[in-house]
Each structure stands twice: as structure tokens, then as C-alpha cells.
């Protein structure tokens, strides 16, 4: 049980893992806020988002396990892969940061997920389409919540403005990874499984630009930096996150929880 599992490189499986892992790892970071948020209402909101995201991750990973064919369940996939086999985008594994970092990241990811789930609702894979139908509503709420806060912080005080701008400097250049297509995207596109993520870029940029404008924030120029988490080459933060997340599964082989 405790040794790592090996997962098929089949593009459909990889496509699903990218979605499931991105939701799972962001949930992991959001859960770090529980009990530590700036106001009680945000304790609730952030835990709620984490809950939605874990729910999405469970549905998608379960389905990925079915497609994969080795009989892995959601927990084996979530807890027993090596770091190099996690397929989340790098953005979501970065440390929790302050509330501005959390809000901006939520806005970036939720906007992306909203667009993605919308397209996936018509996936040729009926199971995935079903998951998407529910998830898109959640993503819409997450986006709205993050957007409200982003504007509030951008407009609020000098301090909150400074922090939002710092968060933009810290996170923005991780967005390019979301839209960097490869064979996995081409396969999903060709089979009708789902969109090439790159095809969501225009809409994503438009929504983010609008959101930034509402806060009077400047969208940074694009840089050549390209993160590669969704292909399994993560940041140095990922190892620590996984050591924590996997500990019980690794330390209690054969356990039933």
C-alpha cells in the first residue's frame, strides 16, 4: 500500500489528472486557512471552497482511476503517487501566502475552472460532463467571491493595495502554464474529451483583465517564464506539501480509515 503507484501515461488519464490534481492541491492550500482567516466569515468561505474542490478532485480522480484501468481508487491516486506523477499546475502548490495571495490565486484558478467546466459540460465523456455540470456552479461562486475581495483589497487601503500588487508580481507569471498546450490537450480536443486549455486563454485573459480593471490594477506584461507542474516537474514547495499530505498513508501501510 505504501510504496508508490505507477500511473498510465495515456493522454485521457493525464488530462483528468491535471484537473483532479489542480483541484486537490488548491484545496490543500485553502485548508491551511481554517481557523486562521482574517474574519470568521472567511474561515467559512475558504473551508467551503476547499470542500468543493476536494469534491471535484474526488469525482475526477475516481473517474481517472476507472479510465486508467489498474483499479486505483481516489485515495491511491491522491496519496500514493510520487511527486513527479502529480499533474497539478504549479500555481496551486505555491505557499498559502497572505490573504491577498490567496484571493488573487483563487481568482486566477476559479476563472480558469469556470471556463474549463463550462466546456467540459459538453464533453464526449458523459461521466466527466456530469461532474462538470455541478462543478461549474461552484467555480462561478468561487470566482465571484475572489473577485469581490480582489476589488475590495485593491481599492481599500494603501497597505491592501501594496499587498495585492505584490501578489500580482508573485503569481501572475504562473498563468502561462495553464495555457501551454501539448499532446495531452490535442488528444482531448481531438476526442471531444475536453478543450485544449490553450483555447481558454483568450476568454480567461479577457475576464481577468476586466477584473483587474475593476480594481484599477495593471495586468503585467507576459514574460518567458513557463512553469511545468502539469507535466510533473513541480516547484520545490510540492515535496513538502506531499510529505505532509501523504504521511498517514505512508506510515500506516495497509491501514483502513
Amino acid at each position, binding site marked *: 500500500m505504501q510504496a508508490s503507484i505507477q500511473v498510465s501515461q495515456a493522454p485521457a488519464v493525464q488530462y483528468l489528472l491535471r484537473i483532479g490534481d489542480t483541484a486537490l492541491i488548491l484545496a490543500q492550500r485553502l485548508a491551511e486557512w481554517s481557523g486562521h482567516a482574517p474574519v470568521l466569515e472567511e474561515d*467559512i468561505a475558504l473551508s467551503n471552497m476547499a470542500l468543493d474542490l476536494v469534491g471535484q478532485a474526488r469525482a475526477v480522480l475516481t473517474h481517472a482511476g476507472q479510465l486508467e484501468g489498474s483499479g486505483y481508487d481516489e485515495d491511491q491516486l491522491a496519496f500514493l503517487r510520487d511527486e513527479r506523477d502529480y499533474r497539478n499546475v504549479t500555481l496551486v502548490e505555491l505557499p498559502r501566502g497572505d490573504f491577498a495571495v490567496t484571493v488573487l490565486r483563487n481568482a486566477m484558478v476559479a476563472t480558469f475552472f469556470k471556463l474549463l467546466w463550462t466546456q467540459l459540460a459538453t464533453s464526449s465523456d458523459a461521466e466527466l460532463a456530469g461532474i462538470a455540470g455541478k462543478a461549474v456552479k461552484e467555480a462561478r461562486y468561487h470566482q465571484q467571491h475572489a473577485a469581490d475581495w480582489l476589488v475590495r483589497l485593491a481599492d481599500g487601503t494603501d497597505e491592501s493595495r501594496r499587498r495585492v500588487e505584490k501578489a500580482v508580481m508573485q503569481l501572475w507569471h504562473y498563468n502561462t502554464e495553464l495555457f501551454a498546450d501539448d499532446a495531452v490537450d490535442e488528444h482531448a480536443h481531438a476526442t471531444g474529451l475536453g478543450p485544449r486549455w490553450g483555447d481558454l486563454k483568450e476568454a480567461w485573459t479577457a475576464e481577468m483583465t476586466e477584473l483587474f480593471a475593476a480594481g484599477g490594477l495593471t495586468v503585467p506584461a507576459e514574460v518567458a517564464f513557463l512553469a511545468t507542474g502539469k507535466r510533473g516537474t513541480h516547484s520545490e514547495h510540492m515535496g513538502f506539501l506531499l510529505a505532509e499530505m501523504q504521511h498517514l498513508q505512508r506510515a500506516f501501510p495497509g491501514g483502513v480509515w
Partner: protein
Amino acid sequence: MILEDRFEARIGEGDFIEAKDWMPDHYRKTLVRQISQHAHSEIVGMLPEGNWLTRAPTLKRKTILLAKVQDEAGHGLYLYSAAETLGTSRDQMLEALHSGKAKYSSIFNYPTLTWADVGAIGWLVDGAAIMNQVPICRCSYGPYARAMIRICREESFHQRQGFESLLTMMQKGTQAQKDMVQDAVNRWWWPSIMMFGPPDDQSPNTAQSMRWGIKRVSNDELRQKFVDAAVEQAKVLGVIPPDPDLKWNEDRQHYDFGTIDWAEFFQVIAGNGPCNRERLAARVDAWDDGAWVREAALAHARKQEQAHKEAA
């Protein structure tokens, strides 16, 4: 004195007192103290369990735990609202918590050392909390009673989930997991029993609170009821309560149990428990670190308001 008589009469008839009703000052103060202490317990209580959110062993357990911690925040919210109906603001109550003036349930000053502690808290701590709280659903103050009805329903759910989590490990788990469960029970059993507070003869506020219908059942009665239930549940689980004196008393039709170490209880109350300082520091840090966020929200709201006025 007519007001006070009428108040007492309504209490006597089992009527609810509502926020706009006249009430004695001491009644109001007692309620604010109790409700805010309860609210603080919910939000401090997020910390020991929250400690395991990132390490929950399966996605199902992570889901359950996230939902539970979220419920606790929600309970905090209702309770602060209920207390606010009595004329004390949430910020005032938090200030009292942060300065150490207000109390919260002493049980949360114990650490969660293993995953089984999460289950043990659900089973024992929530179990004890429910025993304490069910009578409050009939409390004389309406807003508090109504908040408690909803809270108790959710707490029972948490309690069952905690029990079920321990049962899964005891029935299907490895020996290492069973040992972990027994160890957690060893550590949480006595503190849970202490949750009902000092013995009746040493409980200073009980009499007045009972008379006013804020408290409905005495500490020792509730404690006995809890022990009776927990011992049976322990049998189902297959764990052994860490009390060699536990024994069914045919005459009393209750379990006798060993002497409670009240010295420990009062040490923890006095601030010398394993986690008192860290729990309070965690809350104070969250509050202080979040100050800029709250200020920003306020500043933004003011600007919006200003803009609306100017537009009008």
C-alpha cells in the same frame, strides 16, 4: 420591581425571553458570558481538529473534517449573533477572548497528537458537548435556544462521524491503528469527563442559572449520563476506558467511576494546560494578521457609500 416580577413569571411559565424584552442586568451578563464563551469554544475548537486537515488519511475523511471545521465556524457565527442581540458586539467579545479575559472550553487546550484524536474528539468531546447543550435548546433566552437547536443537530452528526471513524479503524484497521485509537481514548477520556465542570457542590453559578432557566440540568447529572453512554459505546468500539474503577452499580443503575483529577482541571483552566498559550496565540495572530484585510474591507465600503451619496 414590576418588570422583574413579570420577567420571573414568564420564566416560570417556560416562555422565551426575547432580545427586545426587559431582563435583569445580571441575567443579561450571565447570558453574554455563557454564549460568548460558547462561541469562543467553537472557534478555538477549530484549531485542534484543523491541525489534521492537511493530513487527513483519505479524501472522504478530509471532506468530513473540512465540513466539520466549517460547521464549527458557523456555530461560532450564530452564537456571536445570539450574544449580539444582548448588546455586546462581536469585536468586544473577541477583544475579551484575545486579552485572556473571556474563557473557552478547557478541553481545547489539549493537543491532537494523532489522527485518532480527531475521531476521539468527535466521539467523546462532541458527545460531552451535546449532553451539555441539549438542555440549552430549552434555555429561557430565545435567540440562544434557537441557535442551540441547529447546533445540536450538527453536533450529533459530528459525534456519529467521529465514532464511525474510530469504529472503522477498530474493526477493519491494522494493529497499529487500533493501538492509535486506544491511545487517543486514554488521553481524551478524562478531559471529556471534566468538560461538565466542577462537581455541583463547587459550581458557584449553577443555582441562579438553573432558576433562570439558563441551565437546566446539573453538572454531575450530565456527567453521569455521559459516562453511562460512553462506557457502552466503548464496548461497541472495543476500546478500554482508562479508568480501573469503572463498574456498573446495580443499585444506582449507573456506572460508578474513578476519582477525577480536579487538580489537572484547574491547572488547565489556570492557563497551564499543554496548549493554552498556543491556542490563544493562534487566534490572536490570525486576528492581528488579518487586521489589514478588515481595514481594507471597511475602507472600500466607506468609499462605495461615499460614491453612492455623491451619485445621488
